[in-house]
């Protein structure tokens, strides 16, 4: 088996977006955060547990015929802050994008405290969590002040 053959587990895409270096086991969450589900009509390839020199193991997602926006990518900062994103046009990398984790995450996840005022779905103000630490990732709810980590937050993706 040639090197190229072993690396290319999914065929190259003509147009679309490739998200590489997703932490192992987080690809499904990334799909969820991007709103990609069984209603999605464009082809989507998902590879999990691929050996990676840098990460040990990683996940990869390829979305055909859809170019993700910077806003969509920034939502991924919580689960895949170091992912590499490439926009593909005519089989070549047309653009490389990075994911930015800002000082605050707005309307990406809900606070995990069950008694937080934001747990009432009818309250209209945005869900706001401040980034307190990047490594390990820790966020604090702007309203109730509860500090929470990724394991807790992943279940609360909006």
């Amino acid at each position, binding site marked *: 088996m040639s090197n190229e053959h072993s690396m290319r587990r999914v065929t190259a895409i003509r147009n679309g977006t490739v998200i590489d270096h997703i932490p192992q086991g987080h690809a499904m969450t990334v799909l969820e955060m991007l709103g990609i589900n069984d209603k999605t009509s464009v082809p989507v390839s998902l590879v999990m547990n691929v050996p990676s020199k840098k990460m040990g193991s990683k996940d990869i997602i390829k979305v055909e015929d859809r170019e993700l926006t910077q806003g969509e990518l920034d939502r991924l900062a919580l689960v895949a802050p170091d992912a590499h994103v490439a926009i593909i046009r005519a089989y070549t990398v047309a653009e490389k994008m990075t994911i930015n984790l800002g000082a605050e995450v707005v309307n990406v996840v809900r606070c995990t405290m069950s008694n*937080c005022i934001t747990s009432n779905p009818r309250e*209209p*103000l945005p869900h706001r969590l401040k980034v307190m630490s990047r490594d390990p990732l820790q966020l604090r709810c702007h*309203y109730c*002040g509860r500090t929470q980590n990724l394991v807790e937050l992943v279940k609360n993706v909006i």
Partner: protein
Amino acid sequence: MSGLITMDDLTNEEIIAILDDAERLLPVAKGELYLPLLQGRILGNLFFEPSTRTRMSFETAMKRLGGDVVNLGDVKTSSVVKGETLFDTIQMVDGYTDIIAMRHPRQGAAQYAQDSARVPILNGGDGAGHHPTQTMLDLFTIRQAHGRLDGLKVVLAGDLRYGRTVHSLSHALTRFDCELVFASPDLLRMPRDIVSDLEAHGAKITETEDLYSMMKDADVIYMTRIQKERFSDEDEYAKVAGAYKLHANDLNDVKANMIIMHPLPRVDEIHPSVDATRHARYFEQAFNGVVARMALLCKLLGVSVPKNVEKEGSAF
């Protein structure tokens, strides 16, 4: 500043200045002088949870300063029961009033209200979160007794898990380099994220279940009620109810100027025999709620408290 949601909204200098204002306002709070600094201003009292002292002392504070108060009244008969969001309620009261005092069962409600309102919000308690106006009256009481806030040894006892008064007070005392002792049953220990936060700010903390051994060199013992209403499981409550019962006989070896405080209401954690001792300060503490809130209302409404209140005020 917009409102007072947590003690982080005030610098140490601002805290001291507000306590100074409060001290000058004492004769007005006692009804010995009339000083209508807030005439024409309206306070909206929004208490979504039961309150006796906080609500009444806000009302008294506003009225002593010549202002007026509108009340949400019983939540059961307001629009809240019809499903109105907090956001909508605030939009309405914001239009009726110049400042809002609010208590709400959900944590973060005060910040949420502040983000929804143009007028300042005074947080009168949000779930098990913060209660900064209580902290201001607590600090006033401590300074009144000891002449300072810095470097005191303060024992906080009882329900440290759900007790919002002790959460806010611990943060404030840490900023004044006080030594803290947290005495509670294991089930009601101070939340870990609060302890980490306090330690990150340089707090000196001792945690224990044994209140009585920690009393000897304390400057302040701050008792709290074990709050039945915060327990969903009756059996869990039964395990910790009555964990501490302070009696006058327990006070033989304490410092002469040590004070015992309690945010009230008490159940059985302070025996009535303590009331007659020189250590009991909880009723003065409750009165101090008026004067501390008078100073806060002035501060948030941008009204200066005159340096010479005796001269500016008029006798009845």
